[in-house]
């Protein structure tokens, strides 16, 4: 009877293992695409094999003793109490094994700490729950958000292959170039981790940690935040796109152009209401919906609702100032530092017109449409650039 139950459990486990529904699972650490990741992998495998050998030796003696010296087979207990020689032996041998492991670990660690002679420097800032990438040599900067839709997370739509490991704008780096990473955080502690690059570095507010990558193969490499950073810790993935050096130069040019346009024109443009609303909805879903939810009702115990909110249904300047400043010490960031005037105007227009807020604003005769120009004015007034 117990046998049959055992077989049933085993079979159900095997059927799970062979289940074809999901993507391929993986048993081991990735070998990776950078010299450091290779070195770490080799160290990991060396340690793993040594542990296996130790386990086999210890378990063999254990199992042998358990089978050989059973009372039911008439084993009589010997009465020895200790032996100095074996104690010395099993103190020294493990010690030597450990020295053998410590040496390569030290060498690899020294290599990791060598951040000199990099050709490119990128500053990475963790935010609740997105990453900011700044190319310090070129003035390019942008945010990278999770691009998996809420419908997929809520099981209302089939999941993509890279469910929860996809972003709207990946970090783009050239191959065969030593890229220095300066990693920090704007709020709580995050950790920037891409297994295939062999880099995990905590992003700590007030500190700038250094690390570096040298990618040898073009491709997309995926990772996730490695330190609990609040409610959406599981929803701030990292994608690094390694491209050839010429592709990278081209990419830099388009990005520089985009930055220029964004800085000069966006603030002055007057947008029609429909455009503001559609842009506002997209940006709302990206920046706000993770806490305030797509229906604006917030999360009961953590995040306030925007529907019928006192802050949203207020004179335009107040709403803008609130969003610009954020609420210090909460995930409500100072969005003035994150979003440009146009995006901000679109989002505020969207939230003031959705979920019945338009009715309240109208009865109080507050305007429901906000233009980039107004955001710019308030920005200058409160002094947030």
């Amino acid at each position, binding site marked *: 009877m117990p046998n049959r139950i055992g077989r049933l459990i085993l079979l159900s486990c095997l059927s*799970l293992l062979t289940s074809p529904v999901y993507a391929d699972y993986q048993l*081991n650490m990735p070998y990776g695409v950078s010299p450091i990741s290779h070195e770490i992998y080799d160290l990991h495998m060396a340690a793993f094999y040594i542990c296996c050998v130790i386990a086999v030796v210890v378990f063999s003696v254990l199992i042998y003793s358990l089978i050989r010296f059973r009372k039911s087979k008439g084993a009589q207990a010997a*009465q020895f109490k200790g032996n100095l020689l074996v104690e010395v032996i099993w103190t020294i041998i493990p010690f030597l094994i450990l020295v053998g*492991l410590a040496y390569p670990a030290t060498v690899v660690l020294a290599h990791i700490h060598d951040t000199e002679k990099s050709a490119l420097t990128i500053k990475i800032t963790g935010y609740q729950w997105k990453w900011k990438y700044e190319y310090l040599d070129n003035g390019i900067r942008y945010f990278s958000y999770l691009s998996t839709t809420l419908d997929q997370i809520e099981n209302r739509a089939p999941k993509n292959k890279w469910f929860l490991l996809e972003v709207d704008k990946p970090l783009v780096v050239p191959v065969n170039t030593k890229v220095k990473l300066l990693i920090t955080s704007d709020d709580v502690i995050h950790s920037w981790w891409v297994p295939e690059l062999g880099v995990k*570095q905590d992003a700590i507010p007030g500190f700038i940690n250094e690390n570096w990558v040298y990618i040898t193969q073009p491709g997309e490499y995926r990772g996730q935040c490695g330190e609990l950073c609040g409610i959406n810790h599981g929803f701030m993935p990292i994608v690094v796109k390694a491209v050839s050096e010429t592709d990278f130069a081209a990419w830099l040019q388009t990005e520089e152009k985009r930055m220029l346009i964004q800085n000069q024109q966006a603030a002055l443009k007057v947008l029609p209401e429909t455009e503001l609303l559609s842009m506002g909805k997209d940006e709302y879903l990206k920046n706000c919906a993770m806490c305030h939810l797509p229906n604006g009702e917030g*999360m009961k115990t953590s995040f306030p609702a925007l529907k019928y909110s006192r802050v949203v249904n207020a004179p335009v300047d107040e709403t803008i100032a609130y969003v610009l400043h954020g609420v210090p010490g909460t995930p409500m960031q100072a969005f003035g530092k994150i979003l440009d005037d146009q995006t901000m105007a679109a989002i505020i227009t969207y939230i003031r017109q959705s979920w019945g807020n338009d009715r309240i604003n109208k009865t109080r005769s507050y305007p429901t449409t906000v233009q980039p120009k107004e955001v710019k004015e308030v920005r200058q007034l409160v002094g947030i650039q």
Partner: protein
Amino acid sequence: MDDAITQHHEGAHGPAKGIMRWFYTTNHKDIGTLYLFFSMIMLFVGGALALVIRLELFEPGNFIINPEFFNQMVTMHGIIMVFGVIMPAMTGIANWMIPLMIGAPDMALPRLNNWSFWLLPFAFLMLISTIFMSGPAPDFGWTFYAPLSTLYGPASTDFFIFTIHMLGVSSILSALNIVVTIFNMRAPGMTWMKLPLLVWSWVVTGFLLLAVMPILAGCVTMVLMDRHFHTAFFNAAGGGDPILFQHLFWFFGHPEVYILILPGFGIISAVIPTFARKHLFGYEFMVFAIIIIGILGYLVWMHHMFTTGAPFAAQLSTMYLTMLIAVPTGIKIFNWTATLYKGSITFETPMLFALGFLFMFTIGGLSGVMLSLVPADYQYRDTYFVVGHFHYVLVSGSLFTIIAGIYYWLPKWTGNKYSEKLGQYHFWLSVIGVNLTFFPMHFLGLAGMPRRIPDYALQFTEFNQISTIGSFIFGVAQLIFLYIVLKACFSKNTQPTEAKTWEGAEGLEWTLPSPPPYHTFETAPIIK
């Protein structure tokens, strides 16, 4: 006649009647029982939270609970299991067994003993009450890293802080009591090198607790100050240092893991010789190994912080010291193995759990060596590899030793033998459950799944499902344990159990009747 004397005696100095007995008691056996029952209740509370976590992780996508609640579950599960299950259970066993093992009539400070226990239920009521409050419960993990717990912590964080304070007071007082008892109340002739290893392990554990619990208290007080009194200990914007928090926390947190496992080493050192019918191999080395582990345990807290940007020299020294701990730990494993060698072995339930511990703790220890290598640790840190590692040393390590100890001394405590058959079912289901739950976590971690995430990418699905199935098997198995313990405690003694339950058992506790009278060793035994 003997009976009459005992009856008369208990009438004069016996327990208070009814429920008040348990509030007023200063008897080490009663307080030990309270600790153990409290621990059992919390095991099921913490276990239920773990099952909620595992259920959510059964499939990718939002399954039954939202990410907000998930983080609260993770936090509660950690705190409850560490402070509410393992520590009280170890203290409970210490309360019961140390006076019996050293021939003392009771603990040195009986009233303090009562208070140390009664702080616990209130502390945990306060903590658990936060789940039912209108704001979120603590949601930053049991490590409550700043600034997530300071600037960003929910209002209920203050309840969490005071819970930790109360737990700290409780632990310090009980550690003080145990250390004072061992130093002052040994029976004549019970010299240091005759002490059972359980007692020795508590000497070291007691000092670890006395040294690090105040650090934790200081740390949470600083969190409280940062939250309400405008200090900036951990706030970089005010000139503080978020890393300082981690130093303080792990200066407590690392010795804490030895606090959780060392008394277990003591239990195993009692169980294995009994069922191998052979003297413990290398007693002196076992004692030295515990002391050295205790000392090294103070020095390696930074191995929890390798990715924080720690300087090269600090990383190296911590790595070497951490690897060094493998040596005394190895000595313990080898000595237990040598105790089995040429023994006369039987496989009663306590022995099964001790052997399960020996195998699986070794696995956890080896993955610990892998984790000590800084470059490799960069890849393991904060992944499911770590979760697998510490559950191997805490569940199949600490928890298994506690279960082994309970089976071992249950006949002594209650005068009733448990059902050997049910005990075996409990053991085998637990072993299958533990390995199904925690072994796949190593693969998940290596493949890149971070810990503490409520939802995961598709390639992690299979192993998470196995893990969830395993966790439910393990959970169900503990119901058998509950039944066995309750049956032993509450059924009437039909026939007197012999004083020496196990053929190969040695030690003062086995010279007493089962169950022992309310007061024991009122005149100290003479040890030859």
